[in-house]
């Protein structure tokens, strides 16, 4: 009967997103042209800035790591139809988890033990920060979108208070903790490469990138290959079916939020443990929010999220280069391109479907004739 046509899978997951992306870039190009610059030259600057210049790839992948963590966090929650807007706050509190373990133990235990504890600390603190909105949603029916947004603000205020009043390094002006003991931190990739005799420029890329890849595999296995994942997807697709099947809905909501928060908390591992080696204000820099766009673009699938993260990482790194190269283009241009990407691949994701559908049907019709 009036069944809508289902497009072949490759069109849905490959062609359509590429068309959307292309549209976003064409519109961005028009804006750059309107500013009086050559869009193709700008594009080449951006791509070189993200991949070609020495050290640029390292920076790109370092940003990618952050987007992968927050993207996975949003996607996992979304499989249970929970909109976790709180990645930003969960990542921020994750940083507190890293700092608590590092600052209290780094002079007493082996460095590698402290690092492992700090990674757990980041995820446990992030999970706890997400659990509270999860609990409120599951047991009290408070909408998760509202509560997670509020928890972002609470996290920001809490961190300011702690960094200014409690864990600030005594005798210094900027709100930061003391540096962790030398050696308490994750190995940076360029150091490893240099050790093996491959000369490479110093970049912030560190072992967290591997953790992000492991986290992607973990999420993939969890969602599609475990009982819990089955519960999560049932809940996400039909709460009535979940009730019918005897799935404990409140419990599942809380578990999902915990895992989601833990993933977001891992941003702190990349930033604090991998790069800064001390806790400081505002290190999350909006990664939590961009994670929403990443999950959206990546269709909530770990592979899609990796690709989307790489794209956003490229924009971050290549955008800095744009700013550097052109006097008329500022770093905010990247925000605009991001916005256009979100617009075309999120809000208008299905814009091309009817057209592609028509073309496809005509093609098939012709083949059959």
């Amino acid at each position, binding site marked *: *009967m*009036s*069944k*809508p*046509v*289902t497009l072949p899978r490759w069109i849905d997951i490959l062609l359509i997103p590429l068309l959307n992306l292309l549209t976003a870039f064409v519109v961005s190009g028009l804006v750059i042209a309107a500013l009086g610059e050559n869009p193709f030259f700008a594009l080449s600057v951006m791509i070189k800035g993200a991949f070609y210049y020495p050290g640029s790839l390292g920076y790109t992948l370092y940003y990618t790591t952050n987007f992968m963590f927050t993207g996975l966090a949003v996607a996992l929650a979304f499989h249970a139809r929970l909109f976790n807007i709180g990645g930003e706050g969960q990542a921020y509190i994750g940083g507190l988890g890293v700092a608590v373990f590092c600052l209290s133990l780094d002079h007493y235990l082996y460095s590698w033990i402290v690092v492992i504890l700090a990674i757990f600390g980041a995820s446990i603190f992030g999970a706890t920060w997400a659990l509270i909105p999860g609990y409120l949603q599951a047991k009290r029916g408070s909408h998760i979108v509202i509560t997670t947004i509020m928890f972002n603000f609470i996290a920001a205020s809490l961190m300011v208070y702690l960094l200014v009043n409690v864990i600030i390094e005594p005798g210094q002006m900027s709100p930061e903790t003391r540096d962790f003991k030398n050696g308490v931190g994750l190995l940076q990739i360029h150091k490893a490469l240099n050790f093996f005799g491959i000369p490479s420029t110093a970049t912030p890329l560190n072992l967290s990138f591997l953790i992000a890849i492991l986290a992607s595999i973990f999420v993939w*296995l969890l969602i599609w*290959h*475990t*009982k819990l*994942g*089955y*519960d999560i*997807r*049932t809940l996400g*697709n*039909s709460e*009535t*079916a979940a*009730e*019918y*099947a*005897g*799935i*404990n809905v409140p419990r599942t909501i809380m578990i999902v939020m915990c895992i989601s928060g833990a993933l977001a908390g891992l941003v702190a591992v990349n930033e604090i443990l991998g790069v800064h080696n001390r806790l400081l204000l505002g290190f999350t820099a909006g990664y939590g929010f961009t994670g929403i766009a990443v999950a959206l673009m990546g269709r909530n699938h770990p592979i899609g999220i990796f690709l989307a993260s790489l794209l956003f990482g490229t924009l971050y790194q290549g955008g800095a280069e744009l700013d550097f190269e052109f006097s008329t283009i500022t770093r905010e241009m990247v925000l605009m391109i991001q916005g256009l990407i979100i617009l075309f691949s999120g809000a208008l994701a299905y814009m091309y479907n009817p057209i592609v*559908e028509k073309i496809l*049907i005509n093609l*098939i019709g012709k083949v059959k004739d």
Partner: protein
Amino acid sequence: MSTNQIDKGREKSLPLNSQSKILELKNITKRFGPVLANDNVSLDVIEGTIHGIVGENGAGKSTLMSILFGFYQSDNGIIKVFNKEVIINSSQKAISLGIGMVHQHFMLVPTFSVLENVILGNENGSILSKNLSSARDKLIKLSNSFGLEVNPDALIQNLPVGMQQRVEILKSLSRGAKILVLDEPTGVLTPQETEALFGILKSLKEQGVTVILITHKLKEIMAVTDFVSVMRNGKMVSNLVTQNTSTGEIAELMVGRKVLFSIDKKASQPGDTLLQVSNLNLTKDDGHQVLKNINFHLKAGEILGVAGVAGNGQSELLDSLSGILPIKEGSIKIMDQEIFSQNEMDPKEIRKLGVSHVPEDRQSRGIVLPFQNRENSILGFHYLDKWNKGIFLDNSKISSYLQNISEQFDVRPNNPFLKSANLSGGNQQKLVLAREIDSKPKILLVGQPTRGVDIGAIEFIHKHLIEMRDNGVAVLLVSVELDEIMSLSDRIIVMNNGEIVGEVLSKEANEKDIGLLMAGVKS
């Protein structure tokens, strides 16, 4: 083409005088992507008759009517109304041509009065009061002349379903409908309300209104129509004069093969009481009491039918028995396990006791539409050890299980990776039934097993329910299809307004008495 020739002889007997044709559809073709919903369909409707259109779900009836009412445009073919070729590209156009439509789900605003609903979309300007008074006169005149009494000031939400339908009909008539299309109008009515509706349709016919009745209930076709057109797989298979045909013939044309109507069943041999419900009460959060002092028992090897018009507490009863709704007052005893408010059990625990549940709404409960068939084949059982290998689901075992039960229960296509949303209603239902029956339950709760299911599948599902009974399973069957209840059940309880208003043995039951009980007339 060839299918159109099946009944050539009979078609000749139709008075095909072009003078009297009020509506002609010629070679209508509608394609949705690769799906041919209407394949070269032609239909002639003669003025002042009641014309039935029958066909299984997906045969193309609704598509055809949607084209007639301007929701879709046909790819090919022409429509003639009053012998004039027209293009209908919107419902407004259809209305202006004198075509009215009463949808299966009423398009009424529950908080508006009858009068307000009748002028909805036809308000004639921005000042309401003037139009209301003239509309009131018109409405009263209309309802008098057609014998459709309604109170213009009653709120829709306070009216019984049969009355609401009347308002829908009046709404169409007030726009000057000469052709009235009714889509599955009896689905929500009691037998008595159905009778009343047929009376209305006949009086409309006498006043010269042409009625097109879309239904899947053959009894209704025989009772009220003059002509009947049968659709199958998007094609118009046959046009018949109702009095020259029989339900058997129509069913055969619909399905494309012979259909058994009578259900072969032996006398039941009830065993031990497996389910005992005592003084069950349930009040919803809004203070509305939906179950009132429910008492009944269910024995092994019998089918207990729960009859009633939809929305009289049957759904809540099923939900309470399966653990979806917690028990607040009263108790349920499942074999030796007593369940009451201090000793609640969730659906998972109840399922472990050997209770399987085929839910009323398969699309929101019984299956998860975006899931693959294999994933749906373990819904509710996915936590069992047999589906898990360590911490992971045993996906290959689940796939072969799905293929296995699909084979047994004739779920087509038998494809573990196909999304269940792409199965037809009948096949979705067979999948749910397969899963629940295969769990070897002691008690089987079944809600609306054949709603939106094609005739072939209905036969199959009924056969399986009887087989379960013969194997000593206690079956509780909730259905709004009275025929289904009467032919399958051994005992029947009737629910009205949250109460059990009567119990009858099915061999002593007749439709009229049960109908009165359903309507709450007799207690």
